[in-house]
């Protein structure tokens, strides 16, 4: 297998001389982690809500005061008082405000007669996140309306007690497992797939095809060098990402060791898959064209950004075979729950089996001639 090591040496020496490649494949996952993590993870604030008091009675005053208290306190929304409901709705439709809280004309009478009083929230539901936040804020606002009701010492109905096993997980930490997997994939795609096909297109592979290297040595050499490159990318993003997102005990050596093991296995699985996809490709445009599709197809169904239970059936089927799913699951266990290897045995088993299948198929399909 000495010839295999010659291929590995060649690839790594070239890699060392390509700082642009290293930077590009590492910057994207980090940028994505930081931008997506903080874009999705924060609380929505300063939504603009129009308040229309059509009632004008005394019971309506606390509703307006509560709305202004939210604006001054949690700052979920800022209130704008409207005298005219029509004007408020027009502003809502024109996007100047996000919702209209209307106190209807009979509100006071119904409050005083305890006859089912209502407050209306007219919302712009084109943005689900904003709409849900407004409903939540308006709901909690109304719960503070009226005199406080004393809680019975012994509840007659079952109560739910929630116990959180782990410390609060900000969204940026939730995204980190996906970002590490993405960095491995990026390196596999750029440093493995694209370079391999570009070399082919330039005729560079003719140079080693005329040497006595065997098919297995060639495939193993490319896979091993690709794995090493992807592991370097994965470990770098794992450490930098853990520090940026504030993972507790980020530099615990035992955890780093377990994480590195998952990175190695994931890198091997993804490079084997990449090599299988590219083994018969000759057109340098092909890997670039499938890059985006493959990225979307593997990253999003994996549960890296959203729980898989929310996916439609067909997407769940993709998730079952997607190697990202198992890598992301293993990283989540190790990073967010600090589990041992026992919890991720199946993930490792799947990734290794996936690698073996792809590697075997790629070796069989690899053409030793042009």
């Amino acid at each position, binding site marked *: 297998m000495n010839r295999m090591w010659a291929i590995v*040496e060649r690839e790594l020496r070239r890699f060392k001389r390509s700082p642009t490649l290293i930077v590009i494949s590492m910057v994207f996952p980090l940028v994505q982690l930081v931008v997506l993590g903080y874009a999705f993870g924060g609380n929505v604030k300063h939504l603009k809500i129009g308040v229309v008091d059509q009632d004008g009675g005394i019971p309506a005053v606390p509703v307006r005061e509560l709305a202004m208290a939210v604006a001054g306190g949690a700052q979920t929304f800022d209130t704008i008082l409207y005298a005219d409901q029509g004007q408020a709705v027009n502003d809502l439709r024109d996007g100047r405000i996000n919702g209209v809280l209307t106190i209807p004309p009979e509100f006071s009478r119904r409050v005083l007669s305890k006859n089912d009083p209502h407050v209306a929230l007219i919302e712009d539901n084109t943005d689900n996140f904003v709409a849900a936040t407004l409903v939540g804020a308006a709901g909690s606002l109304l719960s503070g309306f009226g005199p406080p009701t004393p809680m019975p010492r012994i509840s007659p109905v079952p109560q739910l007690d929630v116990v959180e096993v782990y410390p609060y997980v900000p969204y940026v930490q939730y995204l980190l497992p996906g970002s590490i997997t993405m960095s491995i994939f990026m390196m596999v795609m750029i440093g493995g797939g694209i370079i391999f096909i570009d070399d082919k297109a330039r*005729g560079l592979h003719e*140079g080693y095809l005329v040497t*006595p290297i065997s098919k297995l040595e060639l495939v193993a050499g490319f896979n091993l060098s690709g794995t090493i490159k992807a592991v370097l990318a994965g470990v770098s993003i794992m450490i930098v990402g853990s520090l940026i997102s504030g993972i507790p005990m980020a530099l615990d050596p035992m955890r780093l060791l377990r994480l590195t093991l998952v990175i190695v296995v994931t890198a091997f699985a993804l490079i084997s898959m990449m090599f299988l996809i590219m083994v018969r490709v000759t057109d340098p445009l092909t890997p670039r064209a499938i890059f985006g599709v493959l990225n979307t197809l593997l990253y999003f169904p994996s549960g890296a950004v959203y729980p898989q239970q929310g996916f439609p059936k067909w997407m769940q089927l993709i998730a079952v075979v997607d190697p990202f799913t198992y890598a992301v699951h293993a990283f989540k266990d190790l990073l967010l729950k600090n589990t041992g290897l026992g919890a991720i045995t199946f993930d490792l088993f799947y990734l290794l089996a996936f690698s073996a299948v792809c590697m075997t198929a790629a070796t069989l399909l690899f053409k030793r001639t042009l």
Partner: protein
Amino acid sequence: MATPAIDVRNIVKKYGDFEAVKGITFDVAEGEIFGLLGPNGAGKSTLIRMMTTLLQPTSGTAIVGGHDVVKDANGVRQTIGVIPQNMTTDLELSVEENLIIFAKLYGVPREKRDRLIDQLLEFVELTQWRDAQVKNLSGGMRRRVEIARGLVHEPKIFFLDEPTTGLDPVSRVNVWEMLTRIQTERKLTILITTHYMDEADKLCDRIAIVDHGELKALDTPMRLKMSVPTDNVLEVNFASTPPGWIEKLKTLPEVETVVGDDHFFKISSKNAPATTMAMLDAAASAGVTVQTLSVASTTLDDVFVHYTGRALRDALQDASPNESAFMLRRQ
């Protein structure tokens, strides 16, 4: 008769209905520089790729260095050095690193490797550039790196597919000199493909003219030129001539007319090389000294026209669009 270094018998390569090589047969003797001459799309590269195990023949056989290219491909690979048409050197690596990697790919033992690399770098005059990245070298220097790389495992047979294409005239001459030296010093058998007439003429012991996948002619450059009937003029200046010398010149083979005075003669011939040889023999036996001789002789271009029915430069321009595209796809 000694076993030929390369023995190709009725070799055929088909891509679907297209027949790139149509049953070519030839052999190359040990220590010979053999040229495959023809335009782009003629089938030269396909032929060399079959001999170097990069392509499997559709039918026929090729024995290279005593190994069958199909049955014992690794045996062939161990015996040959190959410079493919495309530059296949890693641009990011240094000159020395390229040689080291290929020495390892060929399984050259470590103790031998360093010595060989030193010798080769000196041979291709790149010793002072050994640590330079190949991307910083000129085209001619890169070709020399490839020549060194192709010799790093001491092959017996050296294949070069259009080694000087794209090089400037000075670099081309440099590569020619290098190949001639390799052949002389290392007793290598060299097979080279080219579409340059001057390259084939200057370098090759024998030339095979290939066109449309067929072997059109095969012989030494001189014999190929002599085999083509042409109407040429010899201009000879003799120191002194005996009486009746003009009559003697008229009797030489292939001569059509002779005009001249006591010293200077113009001889019109159907076959300039044949007449020249006979005239020099006659002058030597009559004790006549030839002071100057100029011959508007046959070129390989004339040979190419004679055997293929078209000029090589036209063939290069005409290389059928389909074939050219096909060759590009195959690369």
